């Protein structure tokens, strides 16, 4: 039972296996390794997958699905632009996850569509290996978040595959290159696929592949080149938008074929509704340059996160079919100041690397028994805390597996439930990051505010998936959950989050400090009001007036954005009420420890 490696791509998918010490892609009856990731649902319930589904898409525009990887693990609200772009209709009654409407068929989710592709690859493996495969390593874009990874794993489960590991695509490519060359050094892997872009910086040393950093965009790829070319040929975006779904799909298919011609011959014709249109290489390159420039920002961030300059990278490796476009190669050469490597087939290298990792995970590897892969988490993980601020607990590019723990308390007396909201992203405000999950820790013992200690443990496993466990330390009450995708933001949002986190670092910090100051003030005011209500008898002299005066001023300042004034007044209120607070604590201690001398207890506690 050999383990298999699967590249589940936006436009094409492949399956590979290590046989006789060599990784190779498994072929279909026609001798092709690539299976177009296209699925058509027939009225009789049967499913057509692959080349036929893709080529006949213009005739069945409402029953054929392509590029569904763009919809994996995302909420309908975040997919409207993609749905319009790919001419698919989403079920408007479902707000929690994407479901496509199919003509003459029940609605299907992107996970189900992907599972059809995986099922066919699995069948191919069964045929080629004369039996069921063992486990599978499935590749995902390095920049996929938790929900997108989870959706991929769900699709594999639906297809009846045992997932040994989710492997990042650029890392898979690095394994194929690294084991091929048997060298050491620092690599950059530039992976531009049909719908996703990743850049990973890795160090290979002594058989250990250590990913130093990763960045990318899960909505950028060859699909966008096709669309740019289609619009160019149709005479603009507006003209293309007016086409009916079948004609539009036909135009995009023709543009895709023309793109390949352009890369090889320098000119090509696109068949449009108004006849054949000749497109020059110059015009095509001008139309895709803005798309390409977006990859540059990711490359610079990955280098910065790795603490390296472009000159310190020993080699740049090109991966993904879209890197066949000559302008992409020139762009990468300029970015890194050197010619990129493209010795291995950019379409197959990810699947080959996945097969190698699958072989290594078998425990009796034919290839490299001592090889070890250390990957990273692409986006920071954090919790929403008081005031809507994100408290990061695992920073992006941390080596996985990784864990972190934080302790929380209650804000209200006798509070028995603590809500936690986990977000992924690098912005200061939780609402600007992607929401991963909300969960509750229930059944806390009813105690005064601030007494319970809830320790929350976060673990990101080797697949990049988050697991959360929480426990109240005094009582040992435990709650354990796996993060389930709830809803999400669009990729533009994720990208914008990171870009903005850098651009607007200062405004963010100011905003956060103001929120912190207000939260602190609220806490102090609540405590003071409670103390005044219950223990006014313990006030001496004009304490009551002084405290009330400062409290009123603080209350008023909180409606303003004058952070420093809020902080100063909070501090002052703390100071003027300190003797009163001390008397109350001493009294409480005396009551609690009746039978012992209050002064003695007070002295021991450092109160005197």
């Amino acid at each position, binding site marked *: 039972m050999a383990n298999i490696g699967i590249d589940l791509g936006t436009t094409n998918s492949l399956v590979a296996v290590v046989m006789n010490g060599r990784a190779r892609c498994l072929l279909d009856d026609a001798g092709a390794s690539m299976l177009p990731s296209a699925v058509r649902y027939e009225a009789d319930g049967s499913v057509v997958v692959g080349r036929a589904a893709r080529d006949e898409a213009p005739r069945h525009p409402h029953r054929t699905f392509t590029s569904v990887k763009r919809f994996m693990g995302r909420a309908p609200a975040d997919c409207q632009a993609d749905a319009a772009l790919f001419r698919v209709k989403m079920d408007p009654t479902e707000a929690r996850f994407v479901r496509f409407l199919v003509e003459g068929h029940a609605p299907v989710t992107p996970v189900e569509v992907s599972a059809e592709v995986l099922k066919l690859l699995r069948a191919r493996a069964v045929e080629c290996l004369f039996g069921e495969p063992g486990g599978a390593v499935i590749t995902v874009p390095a920049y996929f978040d938790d929900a997108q990874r989870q959706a991929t794993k769900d699709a594999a489960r639906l297809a009846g595959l045992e997932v040994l590991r989710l492997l990042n695509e650029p890392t898979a490519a690095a394994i194929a290159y690294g084991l091929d060359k048997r060298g050491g050094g620092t690599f950059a892997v530039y992976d531009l696929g049909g719908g996703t872009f990743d850049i990973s910086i890795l160090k290979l040393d002594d058989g250990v592949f250590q990913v130093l950093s990763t960045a990318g965009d899960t909505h950028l790829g060859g699909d966008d080149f096709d669309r740019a070319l289609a619009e160019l040929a149709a005479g603009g975006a507006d003209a293309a938008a007016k086409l009916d779904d079948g004609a539009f799909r036909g135009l995009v298919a023709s543009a895709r074929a023309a793109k390949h011609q352009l890369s090889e011959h320098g000119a090509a014709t696109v068949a449009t509704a108004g006849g054949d249109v000749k497109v020059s290489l110059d015009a095509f390159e001008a139309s895709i340059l803005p798309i390409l420039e977006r990859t540059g920002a990711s490359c610079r961030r990955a280098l910065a996160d790795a603490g390296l300059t472009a000159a310190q990278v020993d080699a740049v490796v090109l991966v993904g079919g879209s890197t066949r476009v000559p302008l992409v190669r020139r762009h990468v050469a300029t970015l890194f100041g050197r010619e990129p490597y493209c010795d291995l087939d950019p379409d197959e290298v990810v699947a080959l690397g996945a097969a190698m990792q699958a072989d290594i995970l078998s*425990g009796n590897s034919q290839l490299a028994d001592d090889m*070890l892969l250390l990957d990273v988490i692409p986006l920071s993980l954090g919790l929403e805390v008081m005031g809507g601020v994100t408290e990061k607990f695992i920073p992006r590019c941390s080596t996985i597996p990784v864990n972190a723990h934080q302790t929380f308390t209650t804000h209200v007396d006798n509070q028995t439930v603590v809500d936690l909201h986990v977000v992924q992203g690098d912005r200061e405000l939780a609402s600007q990051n992607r929401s991963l999950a909300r969960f509750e820790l229930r059944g806390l013992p009813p105690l005064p505010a601030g007494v319970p200690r809830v320790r929350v443990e976060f*673990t990101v496993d080797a697949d990049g998936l988050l697991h959360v466990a929480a426990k109240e330390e005094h009582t040992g009450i435990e709650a354990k959950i796996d993060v389930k995708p709830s809803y999400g933001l669009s990729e533009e949002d994720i990208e914008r989050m990171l870009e903005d986190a850098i651009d607007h670092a*200062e405004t963010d910090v100011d905003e956060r400090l103001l929120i912190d100051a207000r939260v602190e003030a609220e806490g102090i005011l609540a405590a003071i009001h409670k103390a005044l209500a219950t223990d006014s008898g313990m006030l001496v002299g004009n304490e009551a007036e002084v405290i009330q005066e400062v409290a009123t001023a603080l209350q008023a300042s909180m409606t303003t954005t004058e952070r420093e004034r809020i902080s100063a007044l909070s501090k002052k209120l703390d100071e003027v009420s300190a003797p009163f607070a001390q008397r109350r604590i001493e009294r409480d201690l005396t009551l609690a420890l009746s039978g012992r001398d209050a002064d003695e207890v007070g002295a021991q506690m450092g109160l005197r």
Partner: protein
Amino acid sequence: MASHRSVCFSCREPVQAPSCVGCGALQPPPASPDPFVLFGLPHRYHIDAADLDVRYRTIARATHPDRFVSRPAVERRMALQWTAALNEARRVLKDDRTRARWLATGRSAPRESGGPALDPAFLAEIFEWRERDEDEPGVMRELATASRQKLFRKIETEFSEWEGGSGTLDHIEDHLNRLTYVEGLLRSHPEA
């Protein structure tokens, strides 16, 4: 690798390493591991980064979840915990600031989550820098850079003395808190 548990949870043989020599079962990691002990290093500020990398690779090869794919679930879970603990320990040891703070306080982060306590004299000095920067933009960056270097030198000197058997680590945390603040200033005042 230091001993952390005396008998294998699986076969009850005595163990000294992450894995039981008798049956190969991976043992659970210690609850809050000392990063130095985890890497078999003495408690010293001065460490060899290349040596740390080699030690990390050696241990990771033994504990990484990839090595336990076909082992029982309990061992897979321990592999996850071990490697996570190892990654955290390496993070603490790799960075001069976290390593110093751990040695001085047994923690890798400041005590307060809202930022460390700073003395008024230091804050007054920063206030003066801000004023001077308004008259002469760029001065803040110069002063902060010099302060950063000075703080690192102090940390370095105090650890050298401590490792030589004299001196204490009493002021290290204070230096580190100032350093955190100064580095924050440097980030918020990027080079023109």
